[in-house]
């Protein structure tokens, strides 16, 4: 302002156009400076993002590959099915202890066949090459296919121990193994020989995405199946409840409500609700849905209801903004040809606001998907190994959620869970990216229809 008023007084703009005067130089310098600030700010942001992604991906990608031991296994009928009926209900009497013996014999035979010496190692140490989950793997397979009992499986894949897996991922070294009571350098040497002999190897691990959680001692078996299902169920509840309620509230407040003290109060409170810490909604959910309404703990229905409460203001606010952005001339035009208020809203205003409303909706859902704190309070942080049932009954079965699974894995002792937690974050990020991509696509598609 002062620059502009000063210029004519000094008469400096009367000089040659080919020579920049003092003011112009200053203005240009300021412009360059501001452009630089912007570039610096963007660079910092990009660096932070890159650091985040690199650290998560370098820590998490190994979780998608897992070390497996592939050996031939004899399945003696006298041990696994004494009755000889091949009835899986009867065979279920043989516990994993029985299968562990079968596996240990098969492993010893395979090692001997390849000429790998295990001198100086106890039987327990040899068995320790495999995951504690391995007998359960074999048992589940046999119970699902009772006919294989009495035959020999030429190649069966068993999970390797988490420490052995860590050795091939660089997490465990010979030096660290000396100090580790769970693994010895001799075991690692045998594992290395087994790999050279083709008995052991890494491959892509679908079970990380589909399997349920596993206990503290077997990180190699832990998967995200229950968490993904739980998150999906909660998102369904949030979508079904918050879309109609949020849009109806936004439409009423923006298009129909009289502007008075009460609507102002409601408006302020919706804005306040959007800023309420999410854990408060968790306490509310615990008090109202579980203690008062008697809904089950750890259930996706409760998580969905709590997240709905949390998401609603975050949907109403962008939906109102989208409605406000529709030019008033469209409302005038509709009223001018004799449309009623409802007709003008539903035929003209809402379709024009739909892309904005949908975008707000999906961003609200994405926030809900990543929300952890309220779910901790309603028992979603539980250890759940059973998949929830189909809809709608499954909404009442116990389940966990993706962000909660990340949280619970980071609290566990075994170092194998570090890569699991990072891997779970990658899965969560992929889901969020997909949702945002859907938001962009929907927006484009609706906007093309003017």
């Amino acid at each position, binding site marked *: 302002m002062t620059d502009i008023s000063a210029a004519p007084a000094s008469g400096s703009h009367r000089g040659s156009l080919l020579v920049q005067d003092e003011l112009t130089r200053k203005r240009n310098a300021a412009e360059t400076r501001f452009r630089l600030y912007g570039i610096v700010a963007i660079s910092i942001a990009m660096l932070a993002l890159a650091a985040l992604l690199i650290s998560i991906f370098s820590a998490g990608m190994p979780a998608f590959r897992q070390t497996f031991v592939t050996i031939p296994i004899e399945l003696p009928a006298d041990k696994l099915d004494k009755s000889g009926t091949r009835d899986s209900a009867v065979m279920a009497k043989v516990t994993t202890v029985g299968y562990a013996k079968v596996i240990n014999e098969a492993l010893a035979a395979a090692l001997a066949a390849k000429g790998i010496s295990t001198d100086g190692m106890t039987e327990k140490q040899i068995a320790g090459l495999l995951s504690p989950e391995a007998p359960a793997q074999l048992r589940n397979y046999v119970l699902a296919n009772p006919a294989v009992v009495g035959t020999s499986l030429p190649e069966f894949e068993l999970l390797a121990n988490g420490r052995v897996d860590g050795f091939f991922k660089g997490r465990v070294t010979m030096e660290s193994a000396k100090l580790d009571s769970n693994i010895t350098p001799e075991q690692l040497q045998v594992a290395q020989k087994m790999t050279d002999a083709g008995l052991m190897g890494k491959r892509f691990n679908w079970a990380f995405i589909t399997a349920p959680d596993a206990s503290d001692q077997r990180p190699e078996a832990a998967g995200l199946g229950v968490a993904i299902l739980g998150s999906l169920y909660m998102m369904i509840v949030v979508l079904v409840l918050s879309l109609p309620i949020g849009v109806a509230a936004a439409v009423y407040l923006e298009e129909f409500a009289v*502007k008075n003290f009460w609507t102002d109060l409601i408006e302020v409170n919706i804005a306040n609700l959007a800023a309420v810490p999410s854990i408060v909604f968790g306490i509310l959910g615990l008090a109202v849905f579980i203690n008062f309404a008697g809904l089950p703990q750890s259930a996706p229905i409760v998580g969905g209801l709590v997240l709905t409460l949390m998401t609603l203001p975050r949907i109403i606010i962008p939906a109102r903004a989208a409605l406000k952005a529709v*030019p008033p*001339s469209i*409302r005038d035009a*509709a*009223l001018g*040809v004799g*449309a009623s208020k409802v*007709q003008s809203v539903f035929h*003209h205003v809402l379709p024009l606001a739909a892309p904005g409303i949908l975008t707000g909706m999906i961003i609200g859902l994405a926030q809900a998907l990543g929300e952890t704190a309220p779910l901790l309070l309603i028992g979603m942080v539980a250890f759940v190994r059973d998949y929830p049932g189909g809809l709608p009954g499954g909404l009442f079965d116990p389940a966990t959620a993706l962000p909660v699974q990340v949280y619970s894995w980071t609290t566990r002792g075994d170092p194998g869970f570090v890569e699991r937690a990072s891997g779970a974050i990658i899965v969560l990020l992929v889901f969020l990216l997909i949702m945002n991509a859907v938001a962009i696509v929907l927006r484009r598609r609706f906007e093309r229809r003017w």
Partner: protein
Amino acid sequence: MNDMRIAERNVDTNESKISARKVQVYYGTNHALKDVDVDILDKTVTAFIGPSGCGKSTFLRCLNRMNDTVASARVEGTITLDGENIYDAKVDPVQLRAKVGMVFQKPNPFPKSIYDNIAYGPKIHGLTRSKSELDGIVETSLKKAALWNEVKDRLDSPGTGLSGGQQQRLCIARAIATQPEVLLMDEPCSALDPIATAQVEELIDELRSQFSVVIVTHSMQQAARVSQRTAFFHLGNLVEYGETGQIFTNPKDPRTESYITGRIG
């Protein structure tokens, strides 16, 4: 001023379509329109002129109760359409607006196809029973609005893709498709170039045979060209109302004369 109005009424009582008596409009505490008495005649073009903020658009919007949508606006007095008070509690403004169509200052076609723009009004008012009947209304409305020849091959293309003048004629076609009895136009040519303006003015003159047309305009030349009767508003008052020729050649009120000769406004 009072004398003049009585004289008018004596002459035109039988043809009066809309008559306003003692109309007051308040926006909050602002008294925007004071004591307006007007009789708008059937099958006539009536022009409202006056400087910006004089209340002419406000009064126009009272005639189809568009002011209802402004939360702070309050209207007093009576406005009758064919002898029925449109501000009666029993009147549904939606029904009123089907009879009193409106064209706005800025062309505001719906972001739909040209066909749907015209067909929307008849559809919601249930004016047609079949698709062919609706096609007929669309065609005659576009013909009346002198737009048919330009758009007949692209009725499915978006109305917002037309030029400004075409959009305004589309809005006029949309307004007459609901078969109103009165057509209100709020500065319909202010966003148009002279050629489009001439087309719209020609159109207004043709529409006069079927509707009573009320037009708000900032252009005195336009008022003189298209209207038979002119009302001059100033600071919320109706200063003078009479034959267009008389207003422009022999204004009775000194304020009208000052405005017409360019000394106020």
